[in-house]
């Protein structure tokens, strides 16, 4: 009788252990997928934050440029006199930190290249703006400013 009871208990325990092994196996497989979804959600959040920051930084630059009409005027107003040294001829490449504020060692870059359409009455100056990180473009936009010249000579 004792042998029967013991055999019964052992069989039951064996089933339990077999079940828990299968459960853990299935659990690990499903966790592999669940963790990937969580990671994707987190990465999407980070990318969204980056994108939003880039859009705001570019929008501010474009707004100021549309009124000032020059790279030096725009850069000085937005990022201070220290950033003006990053202007070279008709383009600028400003390093920005993760909050898209000017930082000498930033990992993001704002590049703007100007071109103009000339007329006797005035010029339309365009600025092609790109914000990128490690050669990957985050946001691109083009802005312009109209600079009227003086009165016509009689």
């Amino acid at each position: 009788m004792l042998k029967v009871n013991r055999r019964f208990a052992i069989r039951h325990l064996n089933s339990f252990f077999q079940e828990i092994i299968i459960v853990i196996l299935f659990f690990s497989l499903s966790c592999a997928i669940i963790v990937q979804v969580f990671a994707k959600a987190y990465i999407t959040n980070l990318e969204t934050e980056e994108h939003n920051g880039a859009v705001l930084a570019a929008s501010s630059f474009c707004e100021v440029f549309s009124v000032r009409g020059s790279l030096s005027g725009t850069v000085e107003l937005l990022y201070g006199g220290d950033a003006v040294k990053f202007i070279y001829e008709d383009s600028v490449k400003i390093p920005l930190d993760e909050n898209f504020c000017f930082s000498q060692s930033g990992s993001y870059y704002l590049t703007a290249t100007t071109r103009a359409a000339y007329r006797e009455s005035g010029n339309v100056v365009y600025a092609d703006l790109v914000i990128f990180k490690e050669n990957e473009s985050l946001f691109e936009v083009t802005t312009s400013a109209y600079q009227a010249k003086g009165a016509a000579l009689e």
Partner: protein
Amino acid sequence: MGIEKAVSKNSSVDVLCALSLFLVFSISSLILITIGAGNYKGILGETNRSFNVNSSLHYIINKLHSYDRSGLVSIIEIDGTQVLELSESGDISGYHTMIYHHDGYIYELLTSKTLSFKIGDGEQILPVSELVFDASGNIITIEITDSDSITKSAVVCLKSVGYEGGINNAQG
């Protein structure tokens, strides 16, 4: 009798092992659910904070773009609170929209200029910790701080005439 006791003891140990394994499994599952819930809460909180700040900035930017007409934009101070006043027209009896920060929210109120206005009037738009306007000539800088003390800013330039002497000195 002794054999019975020994066999019974062995059986109890087996059951105890199985039970402890089950207990460890249950506690681990509970911890895992707690971690998952914490992760979800964190991601949701981050998304909401980002949405509040960026929506607020874009909302104010779009409002300024739609009121970029001579002399209709001004930044005034009422009871120590900065208020962005957007007038519908230059009339003293017309309507104006007041946008300001109060009690953790951005408020908006469209009202007649003839009616009195006090801080707290209007509709709550979005929850933010702080909203600061800084005007220099025709350039307005908007700074918004969220509940995590992270500040984001945007710049809007008014192109219509009358703001060269400053937003509050605008001539319509």
